C-alpha cells in the first residue's frame, strides 16, 4: 500500500451555495496516521469541506483526494475505508442505540466488537433506548462508535464533543488518542481551541472558506519573532490612542483597541517594545495595570489573523 501519499489532499477547493461562497480556494493536506484538526468559527466552511471529502458534495472547483482516491469517481472503493461521524442525526428515531450500532457493524467485513465500543463509550446504560430519547451527548457518542465500528483507516469526525459533558469529553479524547496510536488517521473539525490543542498533531485554522494558517499546536502558539502584548490601563485611553501608539512603536506593529481601557499590541517580542509601551502610557497619562507579553493561545492566533474572536 502506498503509504507515502497523504490521507487527504485538498487543492484549491471552491464551494458555493447560490451566491454565498462557503469554501473559497481551500488547500490542505493530512498526513497518514496523524490527528488533524480543522479549527474555525461556525460558518467557516469546515463541514462543507468535510462533506466534500466524504463524497457528499461535488467540488465546484479544485480537487479532493482521499486515501489517493476521488471521493466521487471512486466512491465505492473509498467508502468502506473511511468512517464518518455526522454533526447531527443519522439514525432512525425508533431504533435502539445498540441496535443501530450493530446494524452499521453488519455492513462491514471486519467490524469491531460492538460490546467493547458500547462499554468504551459508556453507552451501556442507554443501549435499549430509542434514538429519539437519547441525550445530545449520547447521540454524539453513538455517532463516534458508528464512525469507528467498521475499522476504518481514516475517520472524519465533525464536532465530536459538541454537547458532551466534561467527563464524556475526556473519554472521547482518550479514545481518539488511542485510535491514532493504533494507526487510524483522524480528521476532526472543532471550534474548541482546547480540543485542537489537546488532540491535534497539526491544526489548520480556517476562516471564510480559506486556510489562514497551519502548523503544530506548538508552532502556532510559539509566535515566532512576534508576540501579543496585552495592555490594560486604569482610565480610558485618549482619542486616537491606537494610531499614536503605533506611531511610537513603528510600522511592524499592529495595535487594536479592544475596549476603552484595553488594547492588543502585536509586534516584536522584545523589551524595547515593552519599554516604549510603558513610556507611551506615561506620556498619555494612563497607568498600565496589565502589560504582559502573552503566551499565545490559538485564540490569539485567530484574533491576530482575522481581527475577530474565534469562540462561538
Amino acid at each position, binding site marked *: 500500500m502506498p503509504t507515502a501519499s497523504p490521507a487527504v489532499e485538498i487543492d484549491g477547493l471552491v464551494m458555493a451555495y447560490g451566491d454565498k461562497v462557503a469554501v473559497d480556494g481551500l488547500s490542505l493536506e493530512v498526513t497518514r496516521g496523524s490527528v488533524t484538526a480543522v479549527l474555525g468559527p461556525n460558518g467557516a466552511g469546515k463541514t462543507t469541506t468535510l462533506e466534500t471529502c466524504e463524497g457528499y458534495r461535488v467540488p465546484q472547483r479544485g480537487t479532493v483526494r482521499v486515501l489517493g482516491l476521488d471521493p466521487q469517481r471512486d466512491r465505492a472503493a473509498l467508502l468502506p475505508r473511511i468512517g464518518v461521524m455526522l454533526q447531527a*442525526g443519522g439514525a432512525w428515531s425508533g431504533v435502539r442505540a445498540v441496535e443501530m450500532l450493530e446494524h452499521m457493524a453488519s455492513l462491514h467485513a471486519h467490524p469491531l466488537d460492538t460490546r467493547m465500543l458500547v462499554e468504551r463509550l459508556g453507552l451501556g446504560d442507554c443501549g435499549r433506548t430509542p434514538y429519539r430519547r437519547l441525550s445530545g451527548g449520547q447521540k454524539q457518542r453513538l455517532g463516534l462508535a458508528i464512525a469507528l465500528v*467498521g475499522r476504518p483507516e481514516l475517520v472524519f469526525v465533525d464536532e465530536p464533543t459538541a454537547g458532551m459533558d466534561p467527563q464524556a469529553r475526556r473519554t472521547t479524547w482518550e479514545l481518539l488518542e488511542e485510535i491514532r496510536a493504533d494507526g487510524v488517521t483522524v480528521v476532526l473539525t472543532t471550534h474548541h481551541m482546547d480540543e485542537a490543542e489537546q488532540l491535534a498533531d497539526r491544526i489548520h485554522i480556517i476562516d471564510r472558506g480559506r486556510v489562514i494558517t497551519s502548523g503544530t499546536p506548538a508552532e502556532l502558539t510559539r509566535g515566532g519573532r512576534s508576540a501579543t502584548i496585552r495592555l490594560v490601563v486604569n482610565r480610558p485611553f485618549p482619542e486616537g490612542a491606537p494610531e499614536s501608539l503605533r506611531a511610537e512603536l513603528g510600522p511592524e506593529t499592529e495595535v487594536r483597541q479592544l475596549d476603552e481601557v484595553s488594547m492588543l499590541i502585536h509586534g516584536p517580542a522584545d523589551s524595547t517594545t515593552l519599554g516604549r509601551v510603558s513610556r507611551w502610557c506615561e506620556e498619555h497619562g494612563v497607568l498600565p495595570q496589565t502589560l504582559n507579553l502573552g503566551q499565545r493561545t490559538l485564540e490569539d492566533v485567530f484574533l491576530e489573523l482575522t481581527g475577530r474572536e474565534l469562540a462561538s
Partner: protein
Amino acid sequence: MSPHTFAPAPGGASLRRMVLAQSRMEARLMLRNGEQLLLAIVIPVIVLVGGVAAAGRIGIDLDGHRAVDILTPGVLALAVMSTAFTSVAISTGFERRYGVIKLLGASPLPRHGLLLGKVLALLNVVALQLVVLVVVGLLLGWEPTPAAPARTVLGVVLAVALGTAAFAALGLFVAGALRAEATLALANLVYLLLMAGGGVVLPASTYGAASTVIQWLPSGALGEAMRTALVDAGVDGRSLLVLAAWAALGTLLTARTFRWE
C-alpha cells in the same frame, strides 16, 4: 485493553449480507412503529370484519356473491397499498429528514443495495399482512374460487408484485420530492381517499358512473386484479397493464426527482 484494538481492517460486507441486514432492520422498524402497524394490519382487519358484518344489513349489490368473498380480495389489495405506498412514503420521508440516508450514504452499502433492502423489507411485511388477512378472511368464511387454482395463484402473484411496484414507486416519488411532514400528510390523505373511493376494497362497478375512471387508478386496478384472480380464477390483463404503467411512471418520476438528502 489489548493492544491495537482499533488497527484498521476496513472493508464492506458482501452485498447480499448488507441487503439482508438492511431489509431486516427496515422490516423490524416498520413492525415496531405503532402507526405503521395500524395501517398495515389493524385497519384492513377492521375493514374486513366490519365490511362483512355491515354488508348483510346494507345490502350492497355484489352480483350475487357473498360479501366475504368480494371483500377479502379487496382488503388484501388495501393491505398492499397501505404498506407499499403509505408506509414506504412516510418511512423514507423521515429517513431523509433524520439523516439516515445520509449516514448510510457514507457506509459501504451502495444506493442500489439500500433500494433492494427496502424492497425486500416491503415484500416481507406485505407477505406477513397477507397471511394475517387470509387467516381472518377464512375465519369469516371466505371461500376463494376453486375453479382454476394455478390461474388464481398466478393472478394473485402478478397483482401483488405489480401493485407493490406501482405503489412503492409512487410512495418513493412523494417521499423524495416533499418534506417529511408534507409526505406524512399527503400519504395518509391519499390512502384514505383511495380506500374510500378508489375501487380497492369494493369493486369498481359499485361506484356507478365513476367506475370507468376508477379502473385506471392504481388502487382500482389492483383491487380488480385481486378480485378477478380470487373470485373468477382469472388473470386480469388490463388491470395488470395499468399497474405496470403506474409502476413505470412512478419509477420515472422518482428517478428524475428523488433527493437522497
